[in-house]
């Protein structure tokens, strides 16, 4: 399925999505609240069938956070990137996708650990790499550590 067809199919079901085709993949920009239905659609619909979530991460744009999901369909061999904007940087929250793609379990815990994004309905929302009592989220741009050596 080409990116044009994907766009058409998604637009038929979700009206307020923005597309971005400047990069390598087709990007779908969406609000955090609508992520979950879109993801379920992308996974389950036969012509999409994005069964493989190969990268899940977060970007801190200082004003807001963006969750980035890279998806691939093993059957149709097409890629898509879903970006969800989280406006609230103080208490970022988003629905989990770890029941759709089990790999998201660890990756979401990593994002929680390093960015502080809380994933709702995640079964085991703990820090994964850092200690349980670590203060702050190191990959945030405003993270400051007095012991950090400036380069």
């Amino acid at each position, binding site marked *: 399925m080409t990116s044009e067809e994907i766009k058409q199919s998604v637009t038929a079901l979700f009206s307020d999505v923005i597309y971005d085709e400047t990069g390598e993949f087709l990007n779908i920009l969406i609000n955090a609240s609508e992520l979950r*239905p879109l993801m*379920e*659609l992308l996974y*389950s*619909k*036969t012509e999409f*069938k994005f*069964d493989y979530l190969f990268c899940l991460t977060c970007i801190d744009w200082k004003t807001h956070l963006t969750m980035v999901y890279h998806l691939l369909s*093993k059957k149709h061999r097409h890629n898509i990137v879903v970006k969800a904007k989280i406006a609230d940087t103080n208490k970022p929250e988003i629905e989990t996708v770890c029941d759709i793609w089990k790999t998201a379990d660890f990756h979401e815990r990593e994002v929680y650990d390093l960015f502080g994004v809380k994933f709702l309905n995640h079964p085991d929302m703990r820090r994964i790499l850092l200690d349980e009592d670590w203060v702050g989220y190191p990959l945030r741009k405003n993270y400051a550590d007095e012991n950090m050596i400036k380069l």
Partner: protein
Amino acid sequence: MNASTIIFYILAATIISGALLAVTSRKIFRSAVFLLFSLIGIAGLYFFIDYEFIAAVQIIVYVGGIIVLIIFSVFLTHGSGEDMKRPTIGRAAFAALAAIFGGVLTMFLISQHTFFPSGKTGIEPSPENIGSQMLSTTEHGYILPFEVVSMLLLAAMIGCIVIAIKIKVPPHKILPETDEDGIEIFDQKQTTLENKQIQL
């Protein structure tokens, strides 16, 4: 006092002290180990009177079998690592009384009985003799008790197997054959998810 007396007393001391420590120790695993010493002492006593076969059987059965079983059951007992509770005074007193009564009764019975040497010479305790006595049907033959005991053990063994038997669940399902590029197999999951999609 000659050497054999000394050896006898050493063995007796091992047996008695092992038994006492086994009873008084507050850790159940230690009790088992002290019991082991006591049993080895008894085996030593058999060696001492040249009943070598009995001694070896004592070690095989009691040390190699019973004690290992006891230790295994200790391992599998909940909370067996902790010290046992100190017995209450009433219990301790009752136990002491029972022990004293038993001891006195035994001593009394022994003193009542007059022991005299029998005219017959005993059977030499060589393995050959023991073996032939065990399987003979003559006057001193033990074939009947031997067989009865083996039947009992067989029954016990079958019982154990029946208790221990578990119906095994196969560890994992048989896989469908994959096709060349290993993609088709995902369709099974797809159908269940399409149902979900209709709800959306």
